[in-house]
């Protein structure tokens, strides 16, 4: 029973996505590479943002890749855990703040 929908090796094979629609893949990979360069934000800060977003979108490939990348960029486990809390807080807060919509509906409907 080792077959799963997510296969670890698919991450290494990601470039094969360019076998079809190669122009689009090339544009994506170029842009992706440029996004993570040192800029107004350092590459380390961008890597931490990527790690947090990876948790928000719950992508196991990105979590794998950016756990390693964040370490390689010089972050440590405390900093990475705080980044994941930021993602979790935004996710939790995003749910909770929609409670205001619920309250609006309830207030309108209730006597």
């Amino acid at each position, binding site marked *: 029973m080792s077959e799963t929908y997510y296969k670890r090796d698919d991450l290494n094979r990601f470039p094969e996505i360019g076998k079809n629609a190669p122009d689009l893949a090339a544009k994506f990979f170029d842009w992706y590479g440029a996004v993570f360069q*040192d800029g107004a934000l*350092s*590459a*380390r800060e961008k890597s931490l943002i990527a790690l947090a977003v990876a948790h928000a979108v719950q992508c196991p490939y990105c979590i794998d890749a950016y756990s*390693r990348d964040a*370490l*390689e*960029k*010089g972050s*440590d*486990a*405390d*900093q990475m855990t705080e980044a994941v809390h930021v993602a979790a807080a935004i996710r939790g807060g995003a749910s909770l703040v929609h409670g205001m919509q619920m309250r609006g509906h309830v207030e309108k409907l209730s006597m």
Partner: protein
Amino acid sequence: MGRSLQTLGSPLAQPRRQLELLDEHTDASFQERLEVERLWPLNADTVDVLQLNVGRVCNQTCRHCHVDAGPDRREQMSHEVFEDCLDALERIPSIATVDITGGAPEMNPSFRWFVERCRSLGRHVMDRCNLTIIETKTHADLPEFLAGHQVEVVASLPHYRPLATDAQRGDGVFDKSLAALKKLNAVGYADDPALRLSLVTNPAGAFLPGDQAALEKEWKRELLRRYGIRFNSLFTITNMPIARFLDWLHDSDNLSDYMARLLGAFNPGAVSGVMCRSMLSVGYDGRLYDCDFNQMLELELSEGMPRHIRDLDADSVKQRAVRVHQHCFGCTAGLGSSCGGATV
């Protein structure tokens, strides 16, 4: 306090077993990879640096140590071998730098005498210092001694925050390291241009080091802001799959992935800067190697080369073919790695 692989009687205390294990877990041969890139043979073209590993004795037992050093080791360079090294330096004036490593090199009883002699021969001297040695009673005056002889200090600090440092080097090492760095600053290190202080960071785990220039900028800012500490440069060094780091990789089931990572990050542009091309390494018993890593794997200089520092002459070891094995992928991954940090 942890114990060395040797004391534990681990099979990986044997260099031959380490080389076998590396072969078993690496999908390519370093030599073949260089052949494909038309970079074989790998030749040394000069000897600018003589690196002495003066013993396996250390006050620490770091988990990643490629020397398998520790307080339980006994091997030390004898006074006689130090004298052989000085004779070699007198014979070969082109060796500009003497790089002293260990273990904790300062624990060798001949260390200070040897530093003084090297300086009187006009050589630049580097001490690869683990910092915590400065916090021991017997070596408390080390900063003054090193400053007095203008010794360049190359000090290990995995991170400017405590977590990774203590995980790799032992509980409490971070605080002691900061205390030692402040003492080095206090005697002029990093402020006086003649007193260079470099920091070495290597990853606390099975991953590669980050970009040296970017990290240096951040480290300078953070060490100054948090602790008032100054230093000149940061060297990022890749962990070599040798001795205790190899043992940890194997035990934690990271070895194949780590070797694949080194292979995947192979950078042909890093080959010309590998340190064996410009240095020679001397073991505690006076034997000669291309680098400290080959020394730990007991890969002595190639056929026809002198075996011992007393037989070293100016020309024989230039243009020598370097002996390589799969651990060399650690020197050519990403931006390269050497005792002076990234190489490209």
